[in-house]
């Protein structure tokens, strides 16, 4: 508790730097990464992150010290080069882009490790800490780092705002952008540069391996909450910043904990909760939809059962015992029991002295399902020329989904047929 208060008072300048730094990095990476996510370039972020290492090492070898600006410039150049190579490979060879990404990632990264090892063996005293680029150094961010990050972050935000509508178009439909004469090459170059820049700074917080997560995860979580691009980017950015804060907090109260990985953990947590709990698109909402579908299917199948039994002996009003019902359709006892109860609640069925009776409303409802089944069989048979013995299974499923609008259309298109392909009568509701 004491640590929590300490942390959120932000009185310790170190805490301030870490929190601010990770929040800025998280937010900018999330914002820029939203476009990579929409353009289905999730892997590209990973490639850039790995490809940056040789640039960092080379620029250290040239400049001889760890001047952050020089390192970032080196990083941008090699990250950017890797993109060009990926592009070139997938354009000029038959390799798919994922193969090209894999090749570039491993070659650049391998080369980077080679350089890093040789620097570490060279005995240059300034080199210690260069491997921060591998694993990140969020916990030891300094005031200078923060200044650089916020400067770059600001530039990135302004660029995204300025070119927002064009970035939207090249993410949605690049061919169209070309056709109306937009400078697509330039825009793509700009977007690539922005991405590389955000990776080059972000990598200092979480390191090479986790960087791709910082780019792509926030957008993929945010997508569950909204259908509006501007909101999606905003939510992603908030996720990025929030996980920066949360990650720094965890590593503060539990000092043995590294900040970078915790930032990514928090981010994953946010995204996983989005996947589960978001309205409509979330898993729970989808489960509910599935359950409702199943419930509907079960009830309609039982109604059909009553109709079939009634049709067989021309007596729709007779009572049916549980055993009869159970024997006539492949339903488990518990399913049948549940379905019967649900139908009773809706007054489609009545129960008297252990026998089940269908009500008038239930009979009408059952007729509709039977009709839809048989109409659909007719449709498949007549319009798709399927053999009569091939249409039943399909109709078993489709009968439950047809809306009144499609129902009318079917009736009209088939001109109210009287018999289905198996010569059973198609019942029409009386009205």
């Amino acid at each position, binding site marked *: 508790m004491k640590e929590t208060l300490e942390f959120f008072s932000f009185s310790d300048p170190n805490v301030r730097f870490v929190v601010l730094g990770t929040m800025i990095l998280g937010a900018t990476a999330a914002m820029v990464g939203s476009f990579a996510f929409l353009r289905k370039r999730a892997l590209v972020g990973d490639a850039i992150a790995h490809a940056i290492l040789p640039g960092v090492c080379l620029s250290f070898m040239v400049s001889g010290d760890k001047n952050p600006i020089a390192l970032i410039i080196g990083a941008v150049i090699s990250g950017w080069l890797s993109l060009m190579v990926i592009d070139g490979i997938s354009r000029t060879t038959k390799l798919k882009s994922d193969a090209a990404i894999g090749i570039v990632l491993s070659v650049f990264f391998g080369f980077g490790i080679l350089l890093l090892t040789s620097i570490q063996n060279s005995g240059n005293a300034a080199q210690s800490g260069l491997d921060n680029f591998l694993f990140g150094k969020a916990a030891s961010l300094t005031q200078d780092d923060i200044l650089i990050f916020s400067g770059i972050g600001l530039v990135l935000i302004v660029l995204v705002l300025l070119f927002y509508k064009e970035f939207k178009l090249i993410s949605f439909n690049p061919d*169209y952008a070309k056709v*109306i004469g937009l400078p697509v090459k330039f825009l793509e170059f700009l977007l690539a540069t922005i991405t590389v820049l955000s990776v080059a700074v972000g990598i200092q917080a979480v390191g090479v391996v986790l960087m791709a997560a910082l780019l792509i995860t926030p957008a993929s979580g945010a997508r569950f909450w909204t259908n509006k691009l501007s909101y999606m980017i905003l939510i992603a950015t908030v996720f990025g910043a929030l996980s920066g804060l949360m990650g720094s907090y965890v590593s503060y109260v539990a000092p043995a904990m590294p900040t970078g990985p915790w930032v990514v953990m928090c981010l994953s947590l946010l995204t996983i909760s989005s996947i589960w709990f978001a309205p409509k698109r979330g898993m729970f909402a989808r489960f509910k939809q599935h359950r409702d579908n199943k419930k509907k299917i079960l009830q309609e199948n039982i109604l059909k059962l009553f109709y079939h039994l009634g049709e067989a002996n021309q007596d729709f009003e007779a009572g049916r015992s549980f055993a009869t019902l159970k024997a006539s359709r492949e339903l488990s006892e518990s399913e049948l029991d549940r379905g019967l109860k649900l139908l009773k609640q809706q007054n489609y069925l009545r129960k008297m002295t252990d026998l089940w009776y269908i009500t008038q409303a239930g009979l009408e409802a059952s007729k509709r399902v039977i009709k839809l089944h048989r109409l659909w069989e007719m449709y498949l048979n007549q319009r798709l020329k399927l053999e009569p013995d091939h249409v039943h299974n399909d109709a078993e499923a489709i009968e439950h989904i047809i*809306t009144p609008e499609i129902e009318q259309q079917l009736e009209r298109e088939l001109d109210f047929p009287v018999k289905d392909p198996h010569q059973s009568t198609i019942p029409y509701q009386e009205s």
Partner: protein
Amino acid sequence: MNDKTAIEAHNLTVSYNRRPVLWNVDFELPAGQVIGIIGPNGSGKTTLLKAIMDLVKKSSGYVKLFEQDLEEVRERISYVPQRESVDWDFPASVMDVVLMGRYRKNKLLKRLSKADRDLAAEALEKVNMLEYSNRQISQLSGGQQQRVFIARSLAQGADLYIMDEPFVGVDAATEEAIMLLMQEMKKEGKTVVVVHHDLQTAKLYFDWIVLLNTRLVASGPKDQIFNEALLQEAYGGKLNVLSKVGELIKEKDFPVREK
């Protein structure tokens, strides 16, 4: 506006990985008509449009639009890509997409104006989609998505419209609406070039027909084309109910088999 030839393709060859998919295609299409480009799947129709719009590299030959290079007449040309060529799950509204028809090179860094919005709304009105302006594109049916694409193209205010398979996966009402719209556009002096693969309806829809199968099979006024013993395949009518049910299954996440 008195150009007689809308599109001239001269000895056009396009290859993917060295395999030619368009082979020495050579034709001139008159302006002010509704023109159908017809051929079986994989016959190179999409590739032809992309070559016209400079989206793929030509191995040889050239294309002139209104007797000029594309770059000089870009403002007068509008292109409607195949509906399936984009991800309709993209987070955007109908209005967002139609407004894209108003983006211009000289509007980089600028916001769209009220006039742009009005033009977009007008275009939506023409395809009967104005009431859906704020709808998410992922929630549209196939026919509605196609109308949105056409509206985006109309919003450009061009003279020549090049559409790739606007009738695929759309309901009968949309097909008719699009057809009427094309006639309307023709009356206004526009040229409409449409990729289509149904011979039966082609005769009703188009004034001029290009038959394509990697090479050019024929190009001419429709009567001439249909008189030349080009046997029609009896395709059945459209399967509208089927495509609607398909959409419902997707929307509701319904099982296609019960178990």
